[in-house]
């Protein structure tokens, strides 16, 4: 099955991926941008007829996503999108399978499925819309809400520590981990493109503004006057530089990162940590993922990690072929009549 993908010239435009359904997110929702970037990117990255694309989701605002894509789509139940998507992929490995999920959906009720999809390296693209709040249930804190967050269920402030999504994905040894922001369309397009081309579980955390229940959660990263000082754009092979005037950098001293000032003459570009997406060692990626939690450090966006290893689906079909070779194609009559059989005359 895996080898007979129909190869034909496909020329799609963003419009081809828009369904006839009216999009019903709140006006101003960050989801609109994500939908638009997906539709814009797909003509470039979809290497197969669009009937071979499946979008799967769980429950939540973001999970209405499949309805708006003119592909095959499955709106599942809360948290289970990665598992449903796994079944789709294993039933037919020719399909390009995408998951749209939120921080509550994927990391809370669906945490188990998320880590196991990463661990097994199933060839799924998982887009997690992270607005650090429960939107569809109208404003309760989520597993990515910051400690002390005041919400409807935490009127005195949340006492939970939040998940760090890239760290979680890294802990489960995901083969592709990236982050982007709804209000950074070009960057988001690039991350979607990269995820789409990756073979294996590709996880993108997308910071997304919920203008109703958590407006401005990422304003430091999106507002003109603050974003340059708070966002570090990761580029493979490039030193880590940020700041309005490209005046700050990250230096790695052993395993300890430090923010250095490039204007004093003490440090130059050559002293900085050069980003390596393909670094097989997860330790440095973990240091990177911890930046957000370290005061004074910028929030990295971009591809944190991309490594290559056999996907679960490849392994499954390889094994089926190997067993067929060894035992021959299954013969039901032979199986039924095997074991200790006897005749009654």
């Amino acid at each position, binding site marked *: 099955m895996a080898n007979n993908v129909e190869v034909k010239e496909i020329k799609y435009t963003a419009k081809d991926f828009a369904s006839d359904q009216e999009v019903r997110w709140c006006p101003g929702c960050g989801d609109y941008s994500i939908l638009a970037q997906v539709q814009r990117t797909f003509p470039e990255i979809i290497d197969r007829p669009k009937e071979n694309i499946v979008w799967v989701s769980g429950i939540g605002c973001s999970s209405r996503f499949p*309805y708006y894509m003119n592909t095959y789509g499955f709106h599942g*139940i809360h948290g289970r999108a990665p598992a449903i998507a796994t*079944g789709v992929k294993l039933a037919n490995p020719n399909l390009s399978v995408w998951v749209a999920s939120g921080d509550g959906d994927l990391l809370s009720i669906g945490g188990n499925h998320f880590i196991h999809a990463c661990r097994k390296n199933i060839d799924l693209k998982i887009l997690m819309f992270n607005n650090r709040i429960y939107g569809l249930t109208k404003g309760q804190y989520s597993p990515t809400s910051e400690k002390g967050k005041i919400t409807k269920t935490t009127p005195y402030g949340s006492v939970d520590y939040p998940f760090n999504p890239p760290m979680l994905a890294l802990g489960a040894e995901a083969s592709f981990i990236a982050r982007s922001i709804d209000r950074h369309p070009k960057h988001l397009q690039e991350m979607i493109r990269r995820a789409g081309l990756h073979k294996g579980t590709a996880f993108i955390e997308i910071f997304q503004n919920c203008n109703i229940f958590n407006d401005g959660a990422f304003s430091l990263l999106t507002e003109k006057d603050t974003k340059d000082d708070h966002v570090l754009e990761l580029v493979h092979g490039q030193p880590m530089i940020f700041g309005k005037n490209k005046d700050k950098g990250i230096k790695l001293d052993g395993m300890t990162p430090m923010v250095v000032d490039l204007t004093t003459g003490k440090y130059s570009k050559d002293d900085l940590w050069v980003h390596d997406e393909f670094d097989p060692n997860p330790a440095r990626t973990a240091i990177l993922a911890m930046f957000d939690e370290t005061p004074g450090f910028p929030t990295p966006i971009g591809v944190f990690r991309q490594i290559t290893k056999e996907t679960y689906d490849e392994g499954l079909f390889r094994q089926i072929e190997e067993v067929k070779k060894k035992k021959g194609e299954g013969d039901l009559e032979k199986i039924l*009549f095997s074991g200790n059989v006897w005749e009654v005359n």
Partner: protein
Amino acid sequence: METEKEKELLQLKEVTIRFAGDSGDGMQLTGTQFSETTAWVGNDLNTLPDYPAEIRAPAGTIYGVSGFQLHFSSEDIHTPGDQPDVLVAMNPAALKKNLPELKKGGMIIVNSDSFDIKNLNLAHYESNPLEDGTLDGYQVYQVPISSLTANALEGVKLSPKEVSRAKNFFALGLMYWLFNRPIDNTVKWIHEKFAKNPEYIEGNEKALRAGYNFGEMTELFTARYTVEPAKLPKGTYRSISGNEATALGFLAASVKSGLPLFLGSYPITPASEIIQYLSTYKNFGVKTFQAEDEIAGITTAIGASFAGNLAITSTSGPGLALKTEAIGLAVMTELPLVIIDVQRGGPSTGLPTKTEQADLLQAVCGRNGEAPVAVVAAATPSDCFNMAIEASRIAIKYMTPVILLTDGYIANGSEPWKIPHVNELPDIPVKFRTEKEGFYPYLRDENLARPWAIPGTPGLEHRIGGLEKSDIYGNVSYDPDNHHKMITLRAKKIKNIENDIPLLEVEGESSGELLVVGWGGTYGAIKEAVNKARAQGYKVSQAHFRYLNPFPKNTEQVLKSFRKVLIPEINLGQLARLIKSEFLIDVQQFNVVRGLPLRVADIVDQIIKTLGGNNGK
């Protein structure tokens, strides 16, 4: 020189043997081997493995006792037997636990070596039952199985522990001799099983032969017994357990439908063997996915069904509870899916290794919203094969989830199975929708099934999910009248399946005084009880449900043809409740929930009681 006296060979019609020992003593293996050989020589048989949930409870204790009962006969039989005629007890705890069940005057073979102070204490015996008169009235044979095995294995390169472990083969050999069975089958099995360990082959085979020869040589036994082959219909047979039959049934459904089989499952007793068996059929293209939890088990299957595989998920009661929401999703998306529930004792974790049939209401009703699914149940171990095929057929034809109920007893128990040829099995037609013209995701065919339009089909891109969908078009809809319509349509679709399943059969007269009605794995016990009551002159018939939702079309007519209806169940009256509410008839219940199959004698008593003593004779 004295010539050996040929021992008397006594003919028996049927025997029930229980092997009991410590969970480390290999009693399940001994029982299985005895069953295989017994099936092979042509007896009808029925087995009941009964083991503790602990893998290795402390040796010598009563809660660590593992048992295997088998009933074999020269006639058609249906149960593992109420009470054993023969008990093989490898230690005092096994004796203590099983003695109350043994038939009065029955035969006891004990490993006398194990009746030391330590083991007697562990079994809470204050004095040695072999000496204090406890066993008066039984035929007791004290055989020093441990030391005889050790003697026989002298010179074999095995550790003392390994030598001790071989004693189950000694016991098996002795029983083969006593019941006049050949040892060749087991010798062959030993050679295959331990192909990589020549010293295990040598040790186990020696122990087996030593046991057999001990029977021959010792003066202990004055007679041996034989049970003639049963008169089974002509054909090729094998012994099969319910779980293996279930797995083969799905394999057959995959072959007969031409659909790749996908099983998403999470290990759970007593259902795990289904995924274990199916995992060995990779060369059929079978995809077994050991999921991270029960919910992933079923949701991966739903995804696979959406993408066009024959998708199934296997579990037991607690797992079915976890899958509940996803079953609702499969109802809403109207995708074919088979959910196998190998029922065990509940509630909660309950009695993981014991049988029960208390998930019927969970299967029929246990979901949020109006979420009808088809429910079928296998009646015997080999019937699991048929019902797995039936469940798949119904799921595909009606685009619906189907719950297949089996239970711990028939799943682990085995019986001779007349093997069907592949060409005798029904084809399962599959229609994937491919025409673009006039396609809507919730368009329905004559069976009210919606089209199975799988991803990869050009022009049929559509979205489905758990939110209510508009009739025909399948867009999300909150329209109140549409919801009512869809609820009604889904219910009607399931109800219509009644036109496509066999009628409820009555065994015995088709009308009269009393009908005993059962479902699932109690078939054999009820059948034997009804036969016994009839042999005593009572006028009683039997009807057994294998289709529980919908019920067969003639159910009401059948039930109303009898003055009284008795429903024995291993629950507190779940079928009785469904029958009463659906057909507004009064029924008598007989409910015993002990984690064990119903006892034939108890059902017979109940039949007589229901008939009011001699009434109905």
